[in-house]
């Protein structure tokens, strides 16, 4: 089998990699690029733990072929903080105890980032439905929703 050469942008950096045709973006991130923040909870797009942002939209990286990312812009959890400054969502997740085991957290943060880019002032209902593709089994979602609400307020400059 011949590998496919792919040029893409990940977290703002030009990245080139080789992959097989059947490898997913998640496989590539984890196994070829050492970006293990995206998790495989199901491999079938049902849990959202592998969420990444591609060309501004949140996707399950288990449902994207590595080869498809040619020329795309990919954002992963590893690029969310600005250097040593955490993104407000990251800070608020810690502050609100919005994670217990934390395995779903990178996916939630990616999805929530895409949410706040599209809807800076979401209602609780909008948050809950936007995040419905991210499963969390520890928290009951309560503290996650509050963390997103609080981060949104801070990002709107409404500080708490």
């Amino acid at each position, binding site marked *: *089998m011949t590998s*496919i050469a792919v040029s893409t942008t990940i977290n703002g950096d030009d990245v080139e990699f080789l992959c*097989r*045709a*059947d490898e*997913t973006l998640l496989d590539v991130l984890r196994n070829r690029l050492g970006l293990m923040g995206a998790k495989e909870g199901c*491999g*079938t*797009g*049902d849990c*959202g733990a592998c*969420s990444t942002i*591609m060309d501004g*939209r*949140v*996707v*399950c990286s*288990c*449902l*994207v*072929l590595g*080869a*498809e990312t*040619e020329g795309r812009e990919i954002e992963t959890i590893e690029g969310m903080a600005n250097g040593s400054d955490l993104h407000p969502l990251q800070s608020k997740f810690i502050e609100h105890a919005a994670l217990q085991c934390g395995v779903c957290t990178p996916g939630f943060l990616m*999805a929530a980032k*895409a*949410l706040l880019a599209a809807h800076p002032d979401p209602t609780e209902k909008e948050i809950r*439905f*936007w*995040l*419905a*593709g*991210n499963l969390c089994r520890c928290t009951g979602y309560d503290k996650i929703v509050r963390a997103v609400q609080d981060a949104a307020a801070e990002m709107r400059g409404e500080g708490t």
Partner: protein
Amino acid sequence: MRYERPGTIEDAVAMLAQASGRSFVLAGGTDLLVRMKSDDFDADLVVDIKAIPGMDEIAETADGFAIGAAVSCAELAENSALVSAWPGVVEAANLIGSTQIQSRCTMTGNLCNASPAADSVPALVAADARVRVIGPNGTRTISAQNIPVGPGKTSLEKGDIIDAILLARPQPRSGDAYLRFIPRTEMDIAVVGVAVNLTLGADGSVQTARVALGAVAPSVILSEEAARTLIGTKLEAAALGALEAACSAASIPIDDKRGTVAFRKQVAGVLARRAARIAYERAGGK
């Protein structure tokens, strides 16, 4: 497995037509990549159509809309002209999967996956959508309803690619709606889905009706009996009762992990009644 990303539809058709083994068209991939996870699945060729110009566009013409095969369902909701013309179709497409799935999944893929429970298909059938098929022998336009022929099976032939779904400009005083039942609020496959598309006369009574039922048969049912219950009515209680009974009667579902025969038949009627009300109001009925 080979991955190809042709730049023209002709190349794509040629690749699929000449492929020796099992070959697949890749648009959003939200069904195909799930199937690829199975140990029993093998593909020799995957043709990614997203680099073909026009595939990712919603074209508005004098006749209506041509929705490119690679347009994601999320993008449908962002096209205000389409939303106002065919709100039922767009809401059906937007019910598929999560935010993440919406970023990738397409209506054409939903149609070609040929699941009996596909959310957008009843809405497309109720809207009398057509699809443009490009194949080795040229281009043809056929009814969306005729694409799925059974679970996982389509009428498409080797080398055929649907390049767009065609929706007519809606008639004046018309409206469509889609409702489905799922146990949770999100992330489930429809247990029952019902689409209704109505056109009203000047007096507000129903002139034409199309009622499509999903997940209650091997493929979508377009029930003429159900439609007839609404013609000439203003959705009075008796008409809605008749619609409900007709939809329950038209449903021929199975028992499975998602629901029972009795449940599906009963809820098909309930949803039809509710969807008809929404479509009626959207058509300007009161």
